């Protein structure tokens, strides 16, 4: 370029401004208490807005392969009626006070979340108490749920990435809650009695952790603990939250042909370590290099150089029982084979060549900036706590994380790639054309 764009000033636009590495990351820690009924409460008090997020988190019951949708159905239907309020009244009460109520089922826990302005807590909390103690799972609403879920499933099953994900999970995690792939029949066979029994065993105070985040002054906290203390009793049978072992499948390759597909979904990976293993944090560094951010090698090669895809990424799932490493993308149907070859190339490169210092430095800074940026507000601090608490870890996990990101060497990463990335043992799922 010969044109001088900045005649008025002397700045050299080709030089990046100085920058500082991030060294201080401070996490808020909760106040904790345990109620007489066994329910644990963790409270994060911070923030300027007069609002609060409260989560009631319950450990999932042991997975029963004969009734795979039971956990999801029970959780989802908590908002569908109690002995005093029907579904419409529950929704009305929550909406009238400008609150938000969400139910969410995960692999390990199921959650009821309330977002409420503080001034309306005395109206909104009793609704949650009712949900957790008096839900009735009415027949009519259950029928509606079953029918609508089957319809939604039909739509999802037309999406290649959806099919790829469930086939992959089934292969890697086997017949467990992690490997669950619903069929219409699974919904059809849901029985109200089973939901009620599941509810009674799972939604008990001794199986509940309450996490509060927001501007929680003493009066709000005591309102919450009072509501969920003396009047909330455990049932006769404690919740069994143990889970069966993961048993990955023997077949490694799964191809679902869609002759008219414009794109193929690719998902591949391997069962691996979880958060509790010493290699997990350095593996997060390795994963970031490979496919964990926009500038990753997979993105740079397969999107930005080849233009095969709109997006590609890799990740580590950490579960109680184990974990998985995976790579996922949707690519042009005609370049599917080439994309798989490029993925293999990138994995092999990590096993044979040291990551250059410049790239690794960038990833270190990116990961620390990303951690800092993920602490946007008091809710994010509570989320960070959940990640360690439910994995049985302490706050030194994050101190170690920062140290690992700063200090892991490229030799260690090369060794890890050789230890964990054996492409021939990867499970590979393709949906579309191959």
């Amino acid at each position, binding site marked *: *370029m010969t044109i001088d*764009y900045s005649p008025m*000033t002397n*700045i050299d*636009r*080709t030089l*990046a*401004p100085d*920058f*500082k590495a*991030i060294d201080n990351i401070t996490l808020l820690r909760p106040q904790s208490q345990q109620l007489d009924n066994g329910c644990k409460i963790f409270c994060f008090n911070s*923030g*300027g*807005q007069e*609002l609060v997020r409260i989560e009631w988190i319950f450990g999932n019951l042991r997975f029963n392969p004969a009734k795979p949708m039971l956990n999801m159905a029970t959780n989802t239907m908590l908002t569908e009626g109690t002995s005093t309020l029907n*579904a419409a009244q529950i*929704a*009305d009460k929550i*909406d*009238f006070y*400008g*609150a*938000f109520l969400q139910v969410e089922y995960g692999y390990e826990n199921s959650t009821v979340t309330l*977002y409420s302005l503080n001034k309306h807590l005395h109206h909104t909390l009793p609704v949650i108490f009712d949900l957790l103690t008096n839900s009735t799972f009415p027949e009519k*609403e259950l029928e*509606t749920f079953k*029918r*609508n879920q089957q*319809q*939604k499933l*039909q*739509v999802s099953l*037309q*999406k290649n990435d959806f099919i790829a994900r469930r086939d992959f999970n*089934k292969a890697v995690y086997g017949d467990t809650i992690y490997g669950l*792939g619903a069929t219409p029949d699974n919904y059809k066979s849901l029985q109200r009695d089973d939901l009620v029994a599941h509810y009674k065993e799972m939604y008990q105070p001794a199986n509940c952790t309450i996490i509060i985040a927001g501007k929680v002054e003493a009066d709000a906290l005591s309102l919450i603990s009072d509501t969920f203390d003396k009047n909330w009793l455990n049932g006769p049978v404690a919740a069994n939250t143990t889970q069966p072992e993961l048993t990955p499948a023997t077949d490694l390759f*799964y191809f679902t042909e*869609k002759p008219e*597909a*414009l*794109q193929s979904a690719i998902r591949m990976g391997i069962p691996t370590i979880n958060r509790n293993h010493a290699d997990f944090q350095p593996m997060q560094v390795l994963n970031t290099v490979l496919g964990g951010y*926009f500038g990753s090698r997979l993105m740079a090669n397969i*999107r*930005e150089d080849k*233009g*095969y895809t*709109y997006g590609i990424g890799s990740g580590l799932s950490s579960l109680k029982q184990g974990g998985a490493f995976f790579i996922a993308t*949707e*690519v042009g149907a005609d370049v599917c084979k080439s994309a798989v070859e490029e993925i293999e190339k990138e994995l092999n490169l990590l096993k044979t060549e040291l990551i250059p210092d410049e790239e690794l*430095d*960038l*990833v270190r*800074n*990116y990961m620390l*900036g*990303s951690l*800092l*940026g993920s602490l*946007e*507000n008091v809710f994010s601090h509570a989320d960070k706590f959940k990640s360690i608490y439910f994995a049985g870890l302490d706050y030194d996990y994050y101190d170690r994380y920062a140290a690992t990101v700063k200090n892991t060497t490229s030799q260690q990463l090369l060794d890890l790639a050789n230890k964990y990335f054996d492409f021939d043992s990867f499970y590979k799922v393709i949906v579309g054309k191959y």
Partner: protein
Amino acid sequence: MVKFNRFTLDNGLRVIVHEDNTTPMAVLNILYDVGARDEDADQTGFAHLFEHLMFGGSVNIPSYDEPLQRVGGENNAFTSNDITNYYITLPSANIETAFWLESDRMLSLAFSEKSLEVQRNVVIEEFKQRYLNQPYGDVWLKLRPLVYKTHSYRWATIGKTIKHIEDARIEDVKAFFKKHYNPQNAIMVVGGDVNLEQVKQLAEKWFGSIPAGEKYIRNLPQEADQHEERRETVTAKVPLNDVYIAFQMGARLDEDYYAVELLSDVLSRGHSSRLYRSLVQDKQIFSEVHAYITSSLDKGMFVLEGKPLENISIEQAEAALWEELEKIKNEEVPADELTKVQNKTESTMVFSEMSLLDKAMNLASFELLGDANLLNQETEKYLAVTGAQIKQAANKIFRKDNSSTLIYLADKAAVSESEFSELEN
């Protein structure tokens, strides 16, 4: 209440500063006043393709992403029919890097042929992934030209056809940049752990010397009011029938905008809303049903969408939707129901103040509408809406001769029978 300060550089760049010292982060958001509505009819999808090219290196900086990631920052962008918005979040200690990067690409891009070629392919894959290879993914490609006959809202941001993306040439890219990407057409918001003086100094240092460029005068043919019922039926490889009814509605700055938005909330916000309660729960017509508005800067769309249950005919489904619309046209929304949607809107505004990036984007959007401080007046405008105004809005919008109905009929034969035979080899 989102507090801010404002100043304008000599070259016309508008700058808004929102200090928030509860976070160690900073955000730099730049809104360019250009969207898909500013494209030529034979070169659609260009604003969005251009957004991708903004990451392909600028005149003095070969890589945009790399230096940002090196200082712990992240960025993204989006294009709509009205605007193109770019944002960076990074540790506040490194805010100058954001100024350096954003100012250089406002100054000039590298205009690399390689970048154009790759981003054409990436956008074509995006087109396939989001619009063509998904059931119902092409709905906006069909619905927009039904609702709009004159206005450039008749195409989606992705473009009318992949061909337009394929045909993009580097000369077009340069011309588009010159026309739209200059300080006069941009609004910058800097927020987070920053202060006004620091931002003034950095803005002057990095953006002050960028030539003002020519002001783009928008002169789009406006859409005439609709006075005919429109309808299209497509048979597609989708698993379920689907009904869309779109109505023309006013523009974002029209007086009755707030009444119309609350009208859509009464109909469809949450499980206590009318359409869900009546048509999903009670009458069991749909498995899902929604109503929403597009909040467009020119004449917008009010859209109803529902997937009927398999035993329900398209005629029954449409009739059930119209019955709800007639009801809200004829009977004023009861006070409790109005208070409910107003309370919900109020608390949504409070919750949105939890996110620094949301605040920055909102300030930029309202400044584009005329004044960033409108953001702080939003809640009272919603609270001032009356039942009579909602009824009036419903009567104005929900007319048969203002409707465009798009029906997807499921082509059952085309749905693969192997769907449930999992794990084939």
